[in-house]
């Protein structure tokens, strides 16, 4: 069972790491948001799965509280991360940061 916990935590760490690397390597703010939002949210899901599995295997008196509160924290992350990314993207476009190397930009023509 401990191997499964190691595997889940490893996947979570890997995706979080790739999110951070993407944040450093991508060329403009929109692509950076892609890396940040998707990879860190997905990595967090796997970390919380590892926590839940660990609590399930080593059940003790406050395991119920720990696992339930972890799930609530995960739900808060899943709801707030995309909404925050959406807010930053819109604010960036309205404050005059345009996508680099863009093939098409339909949002350019919209009047504000």
């Amino acid at each position, binding site marked *: 069972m401990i191997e499964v*916990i190691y595997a889940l*935590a490893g996947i*979570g*760490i890997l995706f*979080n*790491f790739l*999110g*951070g*690397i993407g*944040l*450093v390597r991508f060329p403009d*703010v929109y692509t*950076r*948001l892609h890396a*940040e939002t998707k990879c*860190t*949210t997905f*990595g*967090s899901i796997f*970390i*919380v799965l*590892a*926590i839940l599995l*660990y*609590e399930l295997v080593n059940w003790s008196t*406050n395991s119920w*509280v*720990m696992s339930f*509160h*972890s799930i*609530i*924290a995960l739900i*808060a*992350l899943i709801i*707030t*991360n995309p*909404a*925050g*990314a959406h*807010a*930053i993207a*819109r*604010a*960036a476009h*309205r*404050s005059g*940061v345009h996508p680099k190397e863009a093939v098409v930009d339909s949002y350019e023509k919209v009047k504000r």
Partner: protein
Amino acid sequence: MNMLFLGIGSILASFILLPLVRMISGPTIPDRVVALDAMNTFVVVSMLCFGLGYNSPIYIDVAIVYALLSYVTTLYIAKYLEGSL
């Protein structure tokens, strides 16, 4: 004490250095806000792991409040950048 999750939490906390690079070198303000958002996510996840490592549920409660408050911060800065504040 639980060395496995303390180790995972330490690794995740060390990833905060990556957004820090972007936050210092980011050419525009939205870049820095994105870096702040990523840092907040890493802090929340590593706090969950530390809560398990020290076996105290209070860390996890703090993580929930931190996640919600960081979302409010992000929305506030975004509002300010749009110029509608």
